[in-house]
């Protein structure tokens, strides 16, 4: 089989797409990362604060080993990795070929501003006469037609909203780099045929379209239209539906036959909408409703026009495709019905995020949009457009509960605790890891009010305030007045999902999300096309990241199986000259265009000043250094200088990540010996100080380079074998995934048979029998020659060596000990149904757990049951096990539905606190209620009281919160949902260096961004060992963990970054402060030689150790004391 470098296409550059792209890039595949929008980051570019830290932290997804391959700045701003080609403004329009050998056709949006030339100066924006709602800020502010789509992007290039642009040409005139081309000629060349029997319509349309710069022909009948179409080349036809003689639909049919690619927009009156819809089925692109809304018309015409001038048809060859276009929010204002969602002080959660964002319209002040007055009473309304059958949204959006709690806490924080916040909800779905404690602390410590009532209508009060009516805990109607109402707008399938599905050839589910395999959620209906992140369903960041990892694993596995390889890592370091023994000879290049932008900075004078500061430096004058031509001229002038370091004074240093690497390759100088200084920003404003500030910036750079340490990061050995502990569904999945990539795996299972928890589960709530998948996995593992399965075995010790190298001792079933060497460890130790003594468990045969019930139901146990009661949250979501076990609600529903199916006469009561049917599971809650299962809520403070009478007769008394009185039920069977507890991890944490949380689950490095990693390099966890989760969720997580492990296994050596900490042992007093300060657990004290040691692979060069060390015994490479002091000195020179 021919081997070639594997390539993959990732569609959507939000959080999931970035995760998948980085995963594959780190595996050395070539990755194309495309996004429809002009920027990366997706929804997260708009969110500043995230649970649980209320910070961002997206950068934690950047590679932690081989760090130098990637840029190391904020991922919300930009992404650069040497194996990733980022293509913004690009869509996939067709996917042909076979898995492993796809040909994907990409179209890129037309660029009216050349991104190569745009330097983001913003001069174009000032004269733009158009002002429209700023989408980035949820419409809360205004922007121009020529604008920055995301204010903080790097590089940040302007784009033009052509639908709003008046083509006045002012921006073209002021652009200093000639980047703007409004392509008016192209517009004129775009001919539109208007077909309508009414002269008024034709004339007015022509008038509008000509004003918009298009050429227009007209026809008054279908027949004439057909003649014109056959004789001319049109870009677009606007066709009336209802015309005498040949009507629009007939004409359309003929036009379609003649010119199938010619887009046709139907025009219709209200009465003939249905005909227009029919017309779309036979190929009309869209329909427009009369009377025309000019803006809507213009937008649709421009859209057609832009697609014709788009850069079309780039075909790339890829082995696999990952779809990661995420999801969208519904627009509450568009929900039919009078909900009062359109008052100015009713905002969506996303808008609220923008309000409190520092880059938002109000610079982060907590104020009302209507008048900018402080918002001090804020209501959060949950389930707006979710769990709403009328909106065809019989699902829970999964993220809003946490979103709202976080926002309520933000409101508290932003107001110094002054704001009163109330969350109105039906079920507070805190089903994720640590969610429940977050909620509890929001309620108890921060005073967020949680009110269980769905608010229907927001009504206006005086002075822009809003009135809400709700039924309180006592059942009384209450009216309360708020300053601001925040809507938890439900999730929807992403806007382009339908088109994408069509071009990718995959199916969607009824809600418009990608239809996936029930258990393997990254598998779409087309082999080789995978679903990453929220496109496969409703997911929060953590789950999206896991799902993205699962998709990249599957993509890699497929590419590999079709003969694509991971490119071997290029030898690094050797590429660059070792100049560490040479005297520093520094060149300074000053870019003239930065100076001209900044209003005529005197670069000669600047150069002279720098030469005075350090006569040894060589000053070069250059221009447009960011362009290819500029780079070439710089290279030419550098060549004869013999300089071994270069500092470039230009604009926007962050642009230069890739260019510096190119420059490095061409000059042989390490990128660590190059620096780009922003001389543009400091030259702005504040009068005569400009020269001084620019000089200061350059001098600091010079000092920085003089002290730079160009040595590349050290490489370490890795044992390219994996150990997977736990042979349940997660462990089996992870082991197979790694073995399929050609690496050896030792799989250790403590029981005699693999399978774990899943063996107790007959089928999933979706009705998929578990025996099938388990059987396939087990036989796959047994058959795989790369996997050694040790059953009845357990880990009894392990020692880590330098690099990625462990020696682990296991004791097998027959008492023998074996030693296993491996480089990575995946913990998949799973969990068990938690034990309980509550509610009479153990005192009566009629009190059973959900697992026991499931066993009985499998044997026809539903027959003969009269009354069944289920109590949820037994022993959980309260201190002790204060977490949601996630699977108990669905298990209860599954079993209740089974009982109702087998025995419709049986009465089933479910006592619950919050029903946690997140995502599409909510449909089963709906179904259960339809089937007559009765749900009765109780609270943590007033649990149902169970008494066991004679003969084990069970009586449950509880207060029904709706009726406000006690009710008693005497069930034949009481079923307890006790939840999941982790298996005892014993000393594994100690052996492998990971932490365990207070509930006994594995503690991940970072909940959202590194969900499967531990802080210890090479140690990962998945499945129930990490947190309670369902089978499909466990599988996805196991795949994600395998993916992370493979990134390491796929290397011959692992490289630490070049910026790492170092200890000067002679100075070190062993106070160990650096150990506690290190957030990566990279430092330890070696008791044998009494030294502080650094795990260079774990160290991320953050410098916390250097800051805490009083005498610089701990230093960070490239940030030496003398160097930094020299920079400080340079900074102060002119002050």
């Amino acid at each position, binding site marked *: 089989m021919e081997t070639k470098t594997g390539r993959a296409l990732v569609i959507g550059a939000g959080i999931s797409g970035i995760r998948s792209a980085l995963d594959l890039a780190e595996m050395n595949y070539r990755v194309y990362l495309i996004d429809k929008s002009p920027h990366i980051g997706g929804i997260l570019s708009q969110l500043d604060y995230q649970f649980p830290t209320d910070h961002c932290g997206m950068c934690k997804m950047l590679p932690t080993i081989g760090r130098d391959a990637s840029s190391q700045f904020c991922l919300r701003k930009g992404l650069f990795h040497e194996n990733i080609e980022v293509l913004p403004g690009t869509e996939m329009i067709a996917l042909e070929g076979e898995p492993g050998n796809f040909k994907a056709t990409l179209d890129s949006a037309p660029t009216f501003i050349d991104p190569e030339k745009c330097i983001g100066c913003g001069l174009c924006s000032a004269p733009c006469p158009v002002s429209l709602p700023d989408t980035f800020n949820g419409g809360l502010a205004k922007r121009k037609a020529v604008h920055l789509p995301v204010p903080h992007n790097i590089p940040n290039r302007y784009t033009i909203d052509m639908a709003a642009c008046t083509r006045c040409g002012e921006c073209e005139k002021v652009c200093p780099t000639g980047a703007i081309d409004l392509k008016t000629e192209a517009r004129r060349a775009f001919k539109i045929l208007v077909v309508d029997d009414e002269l008024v319509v034709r004339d007015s349309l022509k008038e509008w379209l000509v004003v918009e710069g298009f050429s227009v022909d007209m026809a008054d009948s279908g027949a004439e239209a057909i003649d014109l179409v056959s004789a001319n080349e049109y870009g677009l036809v606007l066709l009336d539906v209802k015309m005498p003689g040949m009507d629009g639909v007939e004409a359309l049919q003929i036009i379609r036959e003649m010119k199938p690619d010619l887009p046709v927009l139907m025009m219709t009156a209200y009465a003939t909408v249905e005909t227009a819809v029919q017309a779309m089925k036979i190929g009309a692109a869209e329909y427009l409703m009369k009377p025309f809304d000019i803006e809507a018309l213009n937008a649709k015409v421009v859209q057609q026009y832009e697609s014709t001038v788009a850069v079309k048809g780039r075909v790339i060859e890829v082995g696999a495709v990952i779809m990661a276009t995420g999801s969208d929010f519904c627009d509450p204002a568009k929900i039919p019905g009078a909900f009062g969602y359109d008052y100015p002080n009713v905002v969506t959660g996303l808008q609220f995020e923008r309000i409190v964002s520092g880059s938002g319209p109000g610079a982060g002040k907590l104020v009302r949009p209507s008048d900018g007055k402080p918002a001090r009473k804020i209501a959060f309304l949950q389930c707006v457009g979710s769990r709403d059958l009328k909106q065809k949204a019989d699902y829970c959006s999964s993220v809003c509960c946490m979103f709202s709690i976080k926002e309520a806490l933000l409101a508290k924080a932003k107001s110094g605790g002054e704001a009163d916040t109330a969350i109105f909800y039906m079920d507070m779905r805190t089903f994720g890891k640590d969610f429940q404690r977050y909620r509890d602390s929001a309620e108890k410590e921060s005073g967020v009010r949680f009110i269980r009532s769905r608010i229907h209508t927001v009504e206006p009060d005086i002075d822009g305030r809003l009135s809400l009516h709700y039924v309180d805990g006592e059942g009384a109607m209450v009216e309360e007045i708020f300053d601001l109402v925040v809507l938890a707008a439900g999730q929807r399938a992403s806007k382009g999902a339908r088109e994408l599905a069509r071009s990718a050839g995959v199916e969607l589910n009824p809600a418009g999300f990608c239809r996936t395999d029930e258990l393997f959620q990254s598998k779409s209906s087309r082999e080789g096309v995978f679903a990453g992140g929220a496109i496969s369903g409703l997911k929060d960041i953590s789950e999206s990241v896991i799902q993205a990892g699962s998709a990249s694993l599957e993509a890699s596995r497929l590419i590999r199986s079709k003969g694509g390889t991971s490119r071997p890592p290029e030898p690094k370091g050797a590429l660059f000259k070792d100049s560490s023994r040479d005297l520093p000879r520094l060149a300074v290049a000053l870019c003239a265009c930065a100076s001209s932008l900044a209003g005529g900075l005197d670069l000669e004078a600047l150069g002279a000043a720098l030469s005075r500061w350090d006569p040894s430096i060589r000053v070069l004058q250059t221009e447009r250094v960011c362009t290819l031509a500029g780079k070439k001229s710089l290279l030419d002038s550098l060549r004869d200088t013999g300089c071994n370091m270069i500092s470039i004074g230009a604009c926007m240093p962050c642009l230069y990540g890739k260019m510096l690497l190119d420059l490095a390759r061409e000059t042989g100088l390490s990128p660590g010996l190059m620096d780009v200084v922003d001389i543009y920003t400091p030259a702005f404003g504040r009068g005569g100080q400009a020269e001084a500030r620019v000089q200061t910036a350059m001098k600091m750079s010079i000092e920085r380079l003089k002290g730079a340490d160009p040595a590349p990061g050290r490489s370490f050995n890795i044992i390219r074998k994996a150990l997977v502990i736990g042979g349940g569904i997660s462990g089996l999945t992870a082991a197979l995934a790694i073995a399929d990539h050609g690496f050896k795996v030792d799989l250790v299972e403590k029981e005699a048979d693999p399978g774990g928890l899943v063996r107790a589960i007959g089928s999933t709530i979706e009705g998929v029998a578990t025996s099938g998948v388990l059987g396939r996995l087990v036989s796959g593992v047994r058959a795989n020659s790369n996997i050694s399965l040790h059953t009845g075995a357990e880990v009894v010790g392990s020692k880590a060596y330098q690099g990625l190298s462990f020696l682990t001792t296991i004791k097998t079933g027959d008492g023998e000990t074996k030693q296993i060497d491996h480089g990575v460890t995946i913990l998949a130790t799973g969990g068990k149904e938690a034990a309980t003594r509550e509610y009479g468990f153990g005192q009566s045969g009629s009190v059973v757990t959900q697992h026991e019930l499931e066993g009985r139901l499998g044997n026809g146990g539903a027959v003969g049951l009269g009354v069944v009661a289920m109590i949820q949250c037994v022993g959980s979501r309260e201190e002790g096990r204060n977490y949601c076990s996630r699977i108990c609600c669905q298990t209860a529903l599954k079993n209740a539905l089974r009982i109702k199916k087998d025995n419709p006469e049986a009465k089933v009561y479910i006592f619950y606190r919050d029903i946690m049917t997140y995502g599409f599971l909510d449909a089963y809650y*709906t179904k259960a209620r339809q089937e007559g299962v009765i749900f009765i809520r109780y609270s943590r403070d007033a649990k149902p009281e169970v008494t066991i009478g004679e003969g084990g007769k069970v009586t449950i008394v509880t207060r029904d919160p709706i009726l406000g009185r006690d009710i008693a039920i005497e069930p034949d069977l009481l079923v307890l949902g006790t939840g999941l507890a982790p298996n005892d991890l014993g000393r594994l944490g100690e052996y492998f260096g990971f932490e365990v949380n207070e509930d006994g689950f594995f503690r991940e490095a970072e909940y959202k961004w590194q969900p499967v990693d531990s802080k210890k390099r090479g140690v990962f966890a998945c499945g129930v060992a990490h947190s309670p989760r369902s089978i499909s969720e466990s599988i996805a997580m196991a795949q994600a963990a395998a993916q992370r492990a493979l990134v390491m296994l796929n290397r011959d050596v692992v490289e630490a970054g070049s910026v790492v900490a170092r200890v000067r042992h002679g100075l070190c007093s062993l106070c160990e402060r650096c150990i506690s300060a290190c957030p990566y657990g990279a430092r330890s004290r070696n008791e044998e030689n009494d030294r502080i040691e650094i795990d260079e692979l774990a160290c991320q060069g953050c410098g916390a150790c250097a800051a805490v060390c009083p005498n610089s015994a701990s230093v960070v490479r490239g940030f030496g004391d003398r160097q930094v002091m020299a920079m400080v000195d340079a900074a102060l020179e002119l002050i």
Partner: protein
Amino acid sequence: MQCGTCTGSCGSAARMEHTPRQLWRMVQAGMKDEIFKSRTFWLCSSCYYCTLRCPRGLPLTDTMAALKRVAVAEGYTTDRKSAPFYKAFLDSVRKYGRVRESEMMARYFLAVKNPAVPLSFVPLGMKLMARGKMDLHMPGFGGRGKLDRLYRKVMELEAAK
């Protein structure tokens, strides 16, 4: 889902012994006696707000009607006025095909057997009569038992269900 939207939307909720939400819960719990002893569902004016707003799209107003129906059928007489009124109405329709308001009201007053009830409507009657809006004559068409056949058949079919 017990979200309470129905109660929150109901114009009559304030005067009901049990709010609509409670009522549905009582239906679930099979508390038949208590439901029919209450007047809650008779207070439904069929404004359809709850039906419109229910996020689950449940036919709540129709369910209220169903409760009324059951109450009538099973002879619950907690509400002394409602059932007789509707019966009077239907009888009138059965007989004449169309409602004759005056006769219907007379039947209703007879049925409730409370002299205060008719008296409370005297002012209205007077006004209507003054404007010729009370038809005191026999209807001009139709005749007795105009819809007898239809009624009989419907009852038959209803019983057969």
